[in-house]
């Protein structure tokens, strides 16, 4: 079961964790990407996310399919990404998954984060004291 969400509201981690719980699963792993207050010495005010929403949702579901193809033991996946303005310290992205046992969940989570950053049409504008710039994935 894949849950994919693009939202302009703060991410509710507890709700997402409840959503991936499963009586057959003993392992849940979660990545929470938050907005850093300083980048290369510059004080950051906020990030502004923009997406090609319809395609981003489809790419996120395709990412879930690739995850399940490589790690078939995964039971539930949830990916939530913020859009619009996200302040320092706030969560911009959450990826969580559950499986009966923990083996595989850590590389699966790492893979999911990397693929999200590299393949999903979402863009991030960083607004700091020196101005604003679009920041592609490193």
């Amino acid at each position, binding site marked *: 079961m894949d849950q994919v969400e693009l939202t302009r509201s703060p991410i509710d981690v507890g709700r997402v964790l409840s959503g991936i719980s499963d009586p057959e699963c003993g392992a849940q792993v979660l990545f929470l*990407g938050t907005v850093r207050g300083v980048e290369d010495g510059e004080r950051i005010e906020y990030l502004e*996310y*923009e*997406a*090609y929403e*319809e*395609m*981003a949702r*489809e790419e996120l579901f395709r990412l879930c399919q690739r995850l399940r193809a490589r790690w078939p033991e995964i039971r539930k996946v949830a990916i939530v*990404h913020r859009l619009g303005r996200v302040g320092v310290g706030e969560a*911009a*992205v959450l990826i969580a998954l559950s499986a009966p046992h923990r083996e595989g969940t850590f590389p699966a989570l790492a893979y999911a*984060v990397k693929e*999200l*950053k*590299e*393949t*999903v*049409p*979402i*863009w*991030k*504008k960083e607004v700091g004291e020196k101005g604003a710039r*679009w*920041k*592609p*994935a490193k």
Partner: protein
Amino acid sequence: MKVKVLLFADLREVAGQGELALELPEGSTVGGMLRAIEGIYPALAGRLPQVKVAVGRRLAGPEAVIRPGEEVALLPPVGGG
């Protein structure tokens, strides 16, 4: 044929608009469309080499043919997360 091309992020800001309305010959490819955009919108030209193109919400290479009515989008380097 009329083709609507969606723009995002810095492309959208540089163009000052979220979409381009192009008139292209039937059977145009993605590569042909990019050359047309280069000619019509010189402000975008310098950024096009880094851009990926989605046709029908799927990445498409330069040889891909654009069919009438398909949704086309120019994707600058992504950076979610």
